[in-house]
């Protein structure tokens, strides 16, 4: 058996924390190898070591049988390792071709690459126009540009970090065709993901990390999705199911909401209407940048709306700000954790005060009762299993998953009549995501309405009984899942006609 890359006993510590502890794995050429693990499991550290941007404390690597210890990403690329990052590094104002040339190490700007780009584009089904400006491309198209940029360097190993997190189902299956073809042509692929169904679909081997240590290397098809997830988090997952669906009367409605965006690159919202009932979980699916941020701003009350557009519990709330809306028992979890839902440089206690129903006694006439505040945040920390030494830690010192649990907990602990959450599990590990989903479900079971705006289609499908799609600022009617199903959603997500 020929291995393209062999990693043996790699250890890397940051202070007292062992980010990688005696990790070994081997990647065969022509194979797609999955690297699985929760946030903080040590995936990024391992990848950075392979890509030459970090040096291991101990252990060694072999590249095609030869000793390999890259001192920089430049050296890694010279050896034939390429990487597509989760966050693209493209210049929006430049064309596809200019971006690709800029990414290459030893090329002058005036060389002509059009033919080369078109060659790869055709060979691997990566449809792009080299002369188009990147700012006009969809996320899926941008990813193709990144992939072509890697392929032009003839890599022997392509590392892909969470490649499908922003793609529509159609784009995902296109990507898989490309990856399979690449592997058939001899390129090894290291595929980092937490989406287990995908891993089972295209990866021939999987290495699972947990807490910096190697848990197991296995063949993903021999295990169920649930087994893989449990290996990743090291404990049993709760099965998500609603115990009590009791749909009540209307609680919240949006009527013909239209709004021109103030931002040059913003999305205008057209004629959005939606009605929610008590006890229901409603999902708004859609690819990022189709009006989610603009809609969320209006729902939270960061911008006010015209009269009789937003109605909550029989009251017109269009002109109320977020604090006033919370007094009526509407609560919110925005997508952006640091800087929007939480202030990074403030403690959890202080962050507790961002959302403060006046009935709770945390403040009276503006005077803060810090004891009461702490007892509330301690309660959130214990009820929602937030891993932190105390409520006096700075928000930015928590991992993404823990901060998200804190933010969701802060809103749910009030048993809101309506909670609106955007991307509740974005960048959150599987264990925490499972907790968050479970808490949203039990809130709805108790008769509250839950609105979820998410790009993660699996999340929407597994939680929501009423699904809409937001595309280019328009909201579809509820999709009839029994009749039309996933195909309809996919079509709506890429901007199909409003049904």
């Amino acid at each position, binding site marked *: 058996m020929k291995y393209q890359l062999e990693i043996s006993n790699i250890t890397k510590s940051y202070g007292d924390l062992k980010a990688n502890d005696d990790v070994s794995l081997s990647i065969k050429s022509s194979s797609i190898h999955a690297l699985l693990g929760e946030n903080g499991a040590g995936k990024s550290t391992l990848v950075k070591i392979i890509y030459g941007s970090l040096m291991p404390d101990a252990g060694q690597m072999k590249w095609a049988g030869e000793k390999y210890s890259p001192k920089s990403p430049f050296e890694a690329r010279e050896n034939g390792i390429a990487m597509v990052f989760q966050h693209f590094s493209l210049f929006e104002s430049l064309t596809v071709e200019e971006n690709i040339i800029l990414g290459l190490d030893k090329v002058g700007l005036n060389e002509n690459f059009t033919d080369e780009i078109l060659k790869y584009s055709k060979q691997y089904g990566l449809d792009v126009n080299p002369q188009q400006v990147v700012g006009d491309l969809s996320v899926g198209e941008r990813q193709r540009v990144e992939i072509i940029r890697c392929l032009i360097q003839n890599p022997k190993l392509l590392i892909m970090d969470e490649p499908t997190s922003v793609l529509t189902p159609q784009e995902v299956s296109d990507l898989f065709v490309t990856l399979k073809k690449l592997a058939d042509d001899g390129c090894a692929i290291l595929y980092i993901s937490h989406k287990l169904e995908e891993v089972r679909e295209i990866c021939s081997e999987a290495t699972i990390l947990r807490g910096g240590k190697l848990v197991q290397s296995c063949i993903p098809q021999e295990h169920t999705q649930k087994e893989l997830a449990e290996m990743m988090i090291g404990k049993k997952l709760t099965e998500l199911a609603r115990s009590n669906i009791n749909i009540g009367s209307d609680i919240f409605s949006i009527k013909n909401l239209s709004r021109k965006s103030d931002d040059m690159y913003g999305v205008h919202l057209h004629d959005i209407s939606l009605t929610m009932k008590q006890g229901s979980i409603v999902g708004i699916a859609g690819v990022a940048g189709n009006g989610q941020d603009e809609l969320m701003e209006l729902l939270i009350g960061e911008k006010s709306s015209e009269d009789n557009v937003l109605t909550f519990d029989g009251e017109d709330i269009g002109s109320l*700000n977020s604090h006033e809306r919370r007094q009526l028992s509407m609560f919110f979890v925005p997508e952006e954790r640091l800087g929007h839902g939480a*202030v990074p440089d403030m403690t959890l206690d202080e962050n507790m005060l961002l959302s403060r129903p006046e009935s709770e006694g945390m403040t009276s006439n503006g005077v803060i009762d810090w004891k009461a505040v702490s007892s509330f945040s301690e309660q959130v920390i214990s009820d929602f299993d937030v891993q932190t030494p105390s409520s006096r830690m700075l928000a930015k010192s928590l991992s993404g998953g823990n901060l998200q649990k804190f933010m969701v907990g802060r809103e749910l602990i009030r048993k809101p009549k309506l909670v609106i959450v955007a991307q509740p599990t974005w960048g959150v590990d599987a264990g925490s995501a499972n907790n968050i989903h479970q808490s949203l479900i039990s809130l709805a079971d108790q008769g509250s309405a839950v609105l979820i705006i998410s790009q993660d289609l699996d999340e929407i499908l597994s939680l929501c009984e009423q699904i809409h799609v937001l595309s280019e600022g328009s909201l579809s009617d509820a999709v009839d899942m029994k009749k039309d199903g996933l195909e309809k959603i996919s079509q709506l997500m890429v901007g199909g006609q409003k049904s």
Partner: protein
Amino acid sequence: MIKLIPRAENSKAMIILSPIIALTLTALSALVIFLFILEDIPVSSVFFTLFAEPLLDSYYFSELLVKATPLMIIGLGLSIGFRAGIWNIGAEGQFVMGGIAGGAVGLYFYNVEGFWLLPLMAIAGILGGMLYASIAAFLRIKYQVNEILVTLMLTYVAVLFLQAMLQGPLRNPSGFNFPESRMFHDSAMLPIIWESTRLHIGLIVAILLSFLAWFGIKKHMFGMQIKISGSAPRAAKFAGFDDNKTVWYSLLISGGLAGLAGLFEASGPAGQLTPGLPQFYGFTAIIVAFLARLHPVGILFSALLIALSYVGGENVQIDYNLPSSITQIFQGMLLFYFLACDILIKYKVVLFKKNN
């Protein structure tokens, strides 16, 4: 190699140690500078005059308190705006406008006795500073004009306006055409709280204000609003705070307090309006606010420290003929080392060997 690694929690030890390290470094740097420029004079006696004499001699100590008072009052106001990310750089101008407004009231009631006159002058001083700062608030909210530029430029306007007033309506009618106002009469002068010095009641007001500010910042949602708006504007909206109000509060409070300090200066140590009213307190108070890390009680102490450098600097100038810029060198070094050492609160230093 040295590397800075973020700490999970702010270091409590460093919060206390960092000012001490900064002071030590300032003193060491001063030593080096003196070794270069002093020829026949022993460094130790210059150090004594500079740092110890103002604290040991009662007259110099009272002067130190006199100079610290406006720095405290202005610094308190500025620190509130700085927390909110509203950079009022023009406290000097608001100081002058407060002095003119409050002083004009005192001159209007010239020789009218009454306990009500000083409070009235104080209110006029506050309003003068507030109105002047509100120009920047209005322009920022209405037209997104940067408040740093507006407040700074208006400082020069204020100084010229003072000169114009002193050559026109406020000039002493029997003052031989000197550009100065009349001396204030007794009812318009601040009570002295330390006999036979210039130390006035403003110091007590400053201390009271600092505790009021401490309460507002630590115990009231007002402080949270200011802090959140400053460090995460989107989170402020999420919390339901109106960002325009934050701009108004910040500029009105800092302008009003600068105006009050201006009036205190006019009806305290100066006793009249003169072109010499502005003495850079408005700018120096920026250093005071940052040295205290914007902490309202800390500002009392940082104001004393900076006042020490003023008084000590004047003394070495008189006693040893050293240049007056010594004071500014000190203040500059002090701020520089303070800001540098404060990094250690949030980061720890790790030494490691470079491995090749």
